[in-house]
């Protein structure tokens, strides 16, 4: 089909694009769609506004639930993503398809309109050329009949027409017909560009899209125009073809496409749900099982079906669980054996040691009856058995910690009172070194949930260490508490230690100066045991030292069992060395002078003693 019809160039379009027809139809459809969209948007907005005010809390809850689901469920996320991607791709494909169909429909209709127009214009021209009429009424009748014939026979109007004399031409006397148009039409439905193109050309045919009224509605259509001559007058003849049926077809096709896409999207969602469920359910099963394993249910295993990747995961997971269980059981057995061993060694060693010790003491008590050599031997035996015993006790204590059998026997106890007892206990040693032990306890009593036997051991150890390294200078003990923790600081002003030594002081068998005489005969495990005792309480044990300025050991304990310490109530670096600290006032508790202390609460322990 050869088309001689040219499209009227749009006034705005001077770029000369190769295919302007689809653009024309697109523009046209865009106008319709935009109008529909405006209406729909307005309605939706109104609905959203009224709904938002009433349903806002519900919507917010829903959104949060969806968001939570999105974060926590892999399946939900996968299905939703798949759905969104599917809808997106359907939108793209659907838009392309419907565009393509619209274009084809339009082209087909246009081709038909062009050929029909050519035929009809020729018919009209032929009729006009062969007319033998001269009077006004027969001319009018001829023209009207000829034009009415263009509308087609039958009840359905196949095309409409607009017939108008070209302006700006000399008006002959016998020109009785100026214009004529189908029902409801006037020349204004023809776009001016089309008219101009028709007027300016010779006998060429032109077309343009237009809208024309039918009944109460505006219908889309194609106007094809050409010129005919009658009785020396040039007329413009435009035939207008209805695109309504094409538009309806297109709408139907779009509806079908839309329905198909929706159904497909639902099916894809269902498929995605099914597939991800198949993949995710073993994973979530594995998650549940590993959570149970982590909680200590070591016999828990995954269900293995088939030979696929998931089955391999299950099998290797089970393998891992089995070896884990085996190792944990083995460790537990080892720990039990260790515990048994420690207990056995404890018993087996202590019984003979008790005998040896008693014998040594009997000999020691009778040493005055011996000759000098035997007397000195009895003394050495007695002292060394004592040292051996304390070393053994410390070793057994440490091994109990290592075996993890040490238990915390905590109950609320007044720590200030306990410190007073410790000070009383070390009084003979303090007198031996010539050191004064002072207590600074601004709060009269601080009740702490603790294992008093262990805390007593820690503090006794710290104070004895301070005395040993204190060079006879005073040893100050400070106690303070905040909301969550209590701290005890033991400060000496003796030889002190470097920062590096302070870092190692809690190591087992470590000694600041190996050449130094072991005057108190400690095992070298005292501070290690103190560290373990502190750990058992969830506490801190820290050391500060400076060569020549002495050292400070700070024990911090949570006030209530199981709580964590955030800040110690006392400063580790002493106030008298570093910047101003929390040690505000110093109250002295003289150990040998119990009744003169101004603070009855801190001296309470001392008063009870005989």
């Amino acid at each position, binding site marked *: 089909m050869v088309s001689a019809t040219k499209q009227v160039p749009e006034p705005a379009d001077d770029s000369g694009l190769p295919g302007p027809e689809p653009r024309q139809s697109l523009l046209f459809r865009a106008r319709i769609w935009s109008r529909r969209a405006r209406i729909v948007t307005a309605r939706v907005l109104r609905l959203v506004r009224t709904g938002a005010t009433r349903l806002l809390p519900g919507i917010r809850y829903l959104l949060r639930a969806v968001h939570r689901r999105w974060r926590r469920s892999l399946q939900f996320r996968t299905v939703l993503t798949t759905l969104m991607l599917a809808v997106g791709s359907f939108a793209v494909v659907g838009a392309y398809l419907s565009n393509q169909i619209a274009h084809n429909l339009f082209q087909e209709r246009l081709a038909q309109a062009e050929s029909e127009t050519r035929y009809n214009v020729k018919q009209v021209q032929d009729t006009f050329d062969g007319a033998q009429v001269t009077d006004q009424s027969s001319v009018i009748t001829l023209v009207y009949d000829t034009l009415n014939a263009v509308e087609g026979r039958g009840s359905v109007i196949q095309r409409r027409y607009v017939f108008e004399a070209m302006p700006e031409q000399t008006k002959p006397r016998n020109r009785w017909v100026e214009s004529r148009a189908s029902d409801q039409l006037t020349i204004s439905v023809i776009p001016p560009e089309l008219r101009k193109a028709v007027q300016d050309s010779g006998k060429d045919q032109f077309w343009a899209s237009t809208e024309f009224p039918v009944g109460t509605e505006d219908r889309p259509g194609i106007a094809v125009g050409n010129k005919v001559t009658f009785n020396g007058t040039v007329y413009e003849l435009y035939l207008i073809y209805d695109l309504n049926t094409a538009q309806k077809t297109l709408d139907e096709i779009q509806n079908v496409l839309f329905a198909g896409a929706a159904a497909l999207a639902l099916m894809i969602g269902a498929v995605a749900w099914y597939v991800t469920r198949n993949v995710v359910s073993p994973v979530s099963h594995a998650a549940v099982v590993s959570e149970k394993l982590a909680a200590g249910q070591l016999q828990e295993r995954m269900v293995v079906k088939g030979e696929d990747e998931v089955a391999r995961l299950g099998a290797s997971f089970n393998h891992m669980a089995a070896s884990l269980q085996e190792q944990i059981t083995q460790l537990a057995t080892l720990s039990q054996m260790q515990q048994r061993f420690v207990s056995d060694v404890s018993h087996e060693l202590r019984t*003979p*040691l008790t005998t040896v*010790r*008693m014998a040594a003491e009997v000999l020691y008590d009778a040493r005055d009856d011996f000759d000098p050599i035997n007397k000195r031997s009895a003394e050495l035996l007695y002292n060394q058995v004592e040292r051996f015993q304390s070393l053994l006790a410390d070793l057994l204590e440490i091994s109990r910690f290592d075996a993890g*059998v040490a*238990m915390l026997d905590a109950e609320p106890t007044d720590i200030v009172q306990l410190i007073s*007892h410790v000070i009383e*206990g070390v009084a003979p040693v303090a007198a031996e070194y010539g050191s004064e032990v002072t207590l600074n306890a601004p709060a009269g009593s601080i009740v702490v949930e603790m294992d008093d*036997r262990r805390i007593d051991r820690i503090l006794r150890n710290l104070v004895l260490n301070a005395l040993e390294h204190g060079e006879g200078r005073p040893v100050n003990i400070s106690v303070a508490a905040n909301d969550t923790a209590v701290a005890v600081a033991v400060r000496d002003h003796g030889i002190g230690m470097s920062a590096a030594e302070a870092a190692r002081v809690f190591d087992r068998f470590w000694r600041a100066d190996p050449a130094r005489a072991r005057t108190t005969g400690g095992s070298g495990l005292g501070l290690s045991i103190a560290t373990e005792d502190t750990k058992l309480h969830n506490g801190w044990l820290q050391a500060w030292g400076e060569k020549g300025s002495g050292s400070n050991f700070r024990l911090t304990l949570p006030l209530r069992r199981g709580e964590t310490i955030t800040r110690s109530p006392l400063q580790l670096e002493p106030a008298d060395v570093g910047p101003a600290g929390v040690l505000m006032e110093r109250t002295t508790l003289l150990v040998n002078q119990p009744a003169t202390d101004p603070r009855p609460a801190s001296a309470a322990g001392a008063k009870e003693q005989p």
Partner: protein
Amino acid sequence: MKARILVVDDDEALAEMIGIVLRNDGFDPVFCADGSQALDIFRSAKPDLVLLDLMLPGMDGIEVCRQIRGESDVPIVMLTAKSDTSDVVRGLESGADDYVPKPFKPAELVARVRARLRPGDQKAPETLRIADVTIDVAGHVVSRNSERISLTPLEFDLLVALARKPWQVFTRELLLEQVWGYRHAADTRLVNVHVQRLRSKIERDPEAPEVVLTVRGVGYKAGS
């Protein structure tokens, strides 16, 4: 008359050494090396005090302790090589009055023995009351509504110590000193375990004590 002391210990050397020390201090030791024979020897020897090792062949020391306590109020002091909390507490709960952890000094052992053998206060007749419990100190009788409650001598001493000074709160250390005769701070679990045992005998509801009250963070006092 010399106090007779039954030493139940399977270690011959230690038993002999304990014998030497006890004899040296004027006691009359009797020995038993097997847990299963301990009860028979106890019945025949009628000792004034039992020194009992916890680990014994034949029968566990804890079981021996329970059996002896089942038929007598004789003071029992455990000799223990284990200082694990659970073992000590188990021993005390089975009826022992005190314990001496190995290795111990001879003086320590003798002090513990003497403390348990200390004759009761033979004073003028004295009657004390805590809550609805009546204590006849001289007659060693405790009763509620004229119904007699059986206590071991140690439990009796503990109750009397509290009842004599109902206005005072006793710390565990003070009770250790007054009731057990310790001069220095020792294991306060002794007090905890015996207070619980005492409560199980004299309280109507041991969960809500009325006779022996706990003062949180300090110690115990008598109820009013």
